[in-house]
């Protein structure tokens, strides 16, 4: 089985596993936890396409999370769109926004890129706050998000909404996986490691970066749409800098070098949040301590650490095989002589 088909098979298995959760009678709270995690997971995974694979540290990624949420919410509240049409419209809007922002930002490096994305995010956030008649200002989109039936699917039903979120989530993850294992993905890593060399090899660096920026924004936008469907509203803090910071925490917690690292980070962060909120109001203190332990103790995300250990073990085993072969060959030569 080729890598591509193996990945798709894993995606299918993941989807089946997620769909089995309600079949086995999991309480609604577990479904809610998964849906919430999927929305934020897409935000973190898409951000890692920039940070981990392209070396573009964006501080403003939540802008696209919010743009997806607001575009979808506003389209649905207008009553003129079906859910698939509003979904598509939100993605197109987010892509257009990312194209404009990306075209300006991707030519800049490191800190300048980071701060310019942050600046655009705060501009977008302030537009949401200031345009009260359209966005509801700091109260967000009030009155709920209508969910008319389409193709016999009723997203007002929580189980059907869960299935819809799972399918959208797995499709996005599969797309991201195909992307990072494709030549385009390897070009991104080349740019991350040495963009001058990439340029000398004939890679159109700004164009590749811009494409990556737009795709990543679209996936974050899907995350925003899922969250809008879950909470039946869209709120300005979806696009606030703290949400971008949270996504960076998720990447830190899970690891940026393993494909599913940010997703693991999302689950850890959400679990920590849900557990600490149950027992204390000092959630940030607990999260801060955990992050300190990870940063100072592990110096990488848990998945990165596991991947590194596995790689070391694999190399040690390979070395042992080579040593044994060399020893055998030497023995043979000695016997021969």
């Amino acid at each position, binding site marked *: 089985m080729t890598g591509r088909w193996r990945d798709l098979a894993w995606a299918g298995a993941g989807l089946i596993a997620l769909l089995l959760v309600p079949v086995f009678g999991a309480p609604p709270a577990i479904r809610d936890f998964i849906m919430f995690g999927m929305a934020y997971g897409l935000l973190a995974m898409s951000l890692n396409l920039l940070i981990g694979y392209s070396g573009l540290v964006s501080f403003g990624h939540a802008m696209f999370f919010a743009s997806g949420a607001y575009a979808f919410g506003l389209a649905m509240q207008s009553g003129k769109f079906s859910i698939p049409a509003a979904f598509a419209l939100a993605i197109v809007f987010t892509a257009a926004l990312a194209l404009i922002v990306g075209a300006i930002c991707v030519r800049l490096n490191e800190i300048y890129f980071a701060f310019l994305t942050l600046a655009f995010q705060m501009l977008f956030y302030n537009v949401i706050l200031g345009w009260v008649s359209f966005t509801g200002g700091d109260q967000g989109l009030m*009155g709920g998000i209508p969910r008319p039936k389409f193709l016999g699917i009723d997203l007002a039903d929580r189980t059907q909404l869960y299935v819809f979120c799972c399918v959208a989530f797995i499709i996005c993850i599969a797309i991201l996986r195909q992307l990072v294992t494709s030549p385009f993905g390897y070009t991104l890593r080349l740019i991350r490691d040495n963009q001058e060399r990439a340029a000398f090899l004939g890679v159109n660096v700004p164009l590749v970066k811009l494409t990556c920026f737009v795709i990543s924004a679209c996936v974050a936008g899907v995350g925003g749409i899922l969250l809008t469907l879950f909470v039946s509203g869209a709120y300005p803090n979806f696009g606030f800098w703290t949400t971008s910071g949270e996504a960076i925490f998720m990447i830190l917690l899970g690891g940026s070098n393993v494909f599913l690292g940010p997703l693991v980070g999302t689950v850890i962060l959400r679990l920590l949040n849900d557990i600490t909120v149950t027992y204390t109001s000092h959630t940030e203190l607990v999260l801060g301590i955990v992050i300190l332990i990870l940063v100072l103790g592990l110096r990488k995300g848990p998945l990165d650490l596991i991947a590194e250990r596995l790689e070391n073990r694999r190399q040690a085993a390979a070395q042992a095989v080579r040593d044994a072969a060399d020893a055998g060959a030497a023995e043979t030569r000695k016997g021969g002589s």
Partner: protein
Amino acid sequence: MSSIGSRRSASRRQILKGAGVLAMTGVVGTPAIVKGQSGAIKIGVPTVLSGRVAILGQSSVGGLKVVFDKVNEAGGINGRKIELVVRDSKGAPQEAAKVTRDLINNDGCQIIIDAEASSGAFAVQEVIREIGVLCIHSNSETSSLTADPKLHVPTAFRTARQGIHDAIGGGDYAAKIAKAKGLKKWATCSPDYAYGRSNTAEFMEYAKHFDGNIQVVEESWPKLFQPDYTEVVTKVLNAKADAMYSALWGGDLVAFIDQANLYGLFDKQASFMVNLGDYGVVDQVKQFPQGVYSGGRYNRTVPPTKENEDWYQNYVKTQKHKPTNWSWENDVAAQMVVEALKKTNGDTNGKKLAEAIKGMTIKTQFGVGGSVTMRAEDNTLVNYIIGYGLSLSKEPYIADFQTSPWEPIYELEKQWKKKQGYA
């Protein structure tokens, strides 16, 4: 050997998987089963317990506990104790929605008292629309939450004061002072977000309604949680207004007063500050300005009755802090829930409780004439004490408090609803 090894490894994997499932169920699943069997009536409270507005959650929970502890000491409702389950949403609306769902689905709460700030309250409202349990919004003052029929949810109510009620009462009071002292040119200084803007617009609209000579000559909109108000104070001073209205609140208001004092702002004009009168603000200002008018929030002398003083003393004794405006609003929410539960014989069905609460009148010192009513037409509290008085630097912190009559408020509220397209 290898087959044993692989069997062992599979077994270890199974154990790990099993442990994972158990841990997951423990984190998000089990409490619902265990706690649901306890027999207590569980009331979920999403609120803000961390950050700069943690006092909101603290004093809301205080207001609820005062009532529910008393009920539990007396044996509960039909022998069932009331159990509060409080969760921190950290002020994020999406967390408020998630926490509310968890409280119902995971912790087995049958009733929600939503002690969120406004944006969180709108998110909670959507959860209630879907799940249909009884919900009382105890802190959100944004009028549209209950006034806008498009947002109406049959099982959701509000015991918080409402912005439009305060604006009409405050506008009437301000106009009387303006007429008496010739205050024609007004400046405003309110936080730059929905509450600040709508509250200020409504207050000035009704001040002008009652005194046609009033005109606004300057508007300042400092950011929420802004640390430095120098620019704002200078702007207000340069306007050379006769009076100023401010909807700043909490630590922002304390910081503003302290900084404005350095420029002598309060010596140069009359000031009306709707949120100054609350404990936690009025007793935190270092150099208290003279002649500042404050809206009624909670004060132990308003009304000056024994019941109110006893309630204050009991609150301070049991909760170890002074009550605020949020405390009385939650006290009323708790009382209404208790009365509704008594009417339904402890049945927590959302529709039945909603029927019991609709139009309910309870006796309380926080109401004009000793009672407040949950108005059936829009599920919102009316007849609570609204008014203004002169702020003082020490106890009782407010003097010459004048309670606004409700008849003009009802009348003008009707007109406001028509104008907004709500009626």
